[in-house]
């Protein structure tokens, strides 16, 4: 593993955020903007719960939603690279698979983390006051990094089925939309599908974040069970993702 090569790929991938308007919106701005809108419109609406506003209930899911967009980012970037022959060209250089994958993980994790920071910042600005501690925030980051891993895997799987970057963006929503509806900021009870949510990785992150933000003691087993399940699902999906990626990388 050569740091210079890894940094080169990370720099190139992060340049992409600001170079393509769509990437900029989806990987950095969408969640903060949604939080701003929901904060302003539902910050004093107690329609769902007597102690929490609708907005407060939505925040954990909105943050998880930001990670889900990684699927779109990864899928379109990988399928796009393949479409242009760029992936193949890079494969003829001394960059190793391990270096390539490692640097992609770094770049794909930086983006949702930036979005998370912007999103949380925005939430605090519009009046969100979570009851958690500093350690709680750390745990929030752990949850979302693991979810991001899972989404990198889903993105790689999506790219496998798409011939072009555009097709990949479309396909990515097959993974994004159901999770968004059943297991992020839209309460599943409202869709009459509460039982579905258990199959979606994003549910475990959203629910874990909800518990943390509500001030649940960090020793509470519910938090750790959610983290454990999320971790297990993510590892499986991630390994499948890397497998299909490796199989197709010279296509």
């Amino acid at each position, binding site marked *: 593993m050569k740091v*210079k090569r890894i940094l080169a790929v990370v720099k190139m991938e992060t340049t992409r955020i600001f170079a393509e308007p769509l990437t900029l919106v989806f990987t950095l701005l969408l969640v903060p903007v949604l939080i701003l809108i929901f904060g302003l419109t539902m910050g004093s609406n107690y329609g769902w719960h007597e102690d929490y506003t609708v907005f407060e209930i939505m925040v954990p899911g909105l943050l998880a939603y930001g990670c889900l967009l990684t699927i779109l980012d990864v899928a379109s970037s990988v399928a796009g690279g393949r479409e242009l*022959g*760029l992936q193949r*060209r890079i494969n*003829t250089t*001394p*960059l190793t698979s391990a270096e390539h994958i490692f640097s992609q993980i770094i770049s794909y994790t930086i983006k949702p983390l930036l979005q998370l920071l912007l999103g949380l910042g925005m939430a605090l600005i519009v009046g969100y006051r979570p009851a958690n501690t500093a350690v709680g925030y750390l745990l929030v980051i752990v949850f979302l990094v693991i979810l991001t891993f899972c989404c990198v895997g889903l993105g790689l799987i999506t790219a496998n089925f798409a011939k072009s970057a555009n097709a990949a963006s479309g396909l990515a929503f097959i993974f994004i939309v159901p999770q968004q509806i059943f297991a992020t900021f839209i309460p599943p009870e409202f869709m009459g599908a509460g039982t579905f949510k258990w199959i979606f990785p994003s549910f475990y992150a959203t629910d874990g974040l909800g518990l943390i933000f509500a001030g649940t003691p960090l020793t509470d087993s519910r938090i750790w069970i959610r983290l454990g399940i999320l971790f297990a699902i993510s590892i499986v999906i991630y390994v499948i993702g890397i497998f299909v990626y490796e199989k197709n990388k010279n296509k």
Partner: protein
Amino acid sequence: MKNNDRIKKKDISNSGMIHNLVNSNAIEVKDLKKYFAEKKKMDDVKAVDGISFHVKNGEIFGLLGPNGAGKTTTINILTGMHSPTEGTAVVGGYNVKTNLKRIKEIISVCPQEPAVIKFLSGLGNIKFFGKLYLMSKEQITERSEKLLKLLGLYDARKRLAKSYSGGMLRQLSLIISLISEPDILFLDEPTVGMDPRNRRKVWEFLGSIKQQKRTIILTTHYIEEAEELCDRVAIIDYGKLIAIGPPKKLIEEHEVKNLEEVFMKITGRRILEGM
């Protein structure tokens, strides 16, 4: 790393230097086959069907043949993108099956499609690829300036590649493949889609590289390109090698005027037919 994969190569560990491959061939290909399984057809597509040739060090070697002859597939095998169905391929003394990692350090490929990163500037692209070869900033700056000026892309170097014309993208793609000063350079249809003026410029440029003792393997379906640039050409058709040698010699042997007529005499078809 198995040592016996290495054929007569004096090891110069100082990377970036042109490797000393005296008395050995840059490339050796023997009975190479690549069959692609086609779901809808009974038979496999025989993209490369048992070809053998070698390329000497410092030589410009051409793979000439019509569309679909198997030129790109051959290059893809030599650069590790496809594994051969049968046969052996040795590049720079290393076997493609066992020592790809070493091969990647001494080769560079300019693919058929101008694969550049559209959201980076021309210079940004060059820097990115230079870093993948662990070149220093100074090396990259010095070399890229020279190449950009030589190929007339210097004034456009800071523009995003997505604003480049087709010809400019090809030139950039060529520069990228040269930035690492590879011992062995693969050029897949390097001047396709270029206007005659730029094509001439690239030919002159490739001719000047020749003095640097760099081995170049280029594929083309332009007869002129093969005749003008190549020390030797291999003419391939339907995955088979049908003639090999210096262009002049092939033309003399077949008592014709150019390589096109050589191809015609052997196959009864024109190279550009059906393009």
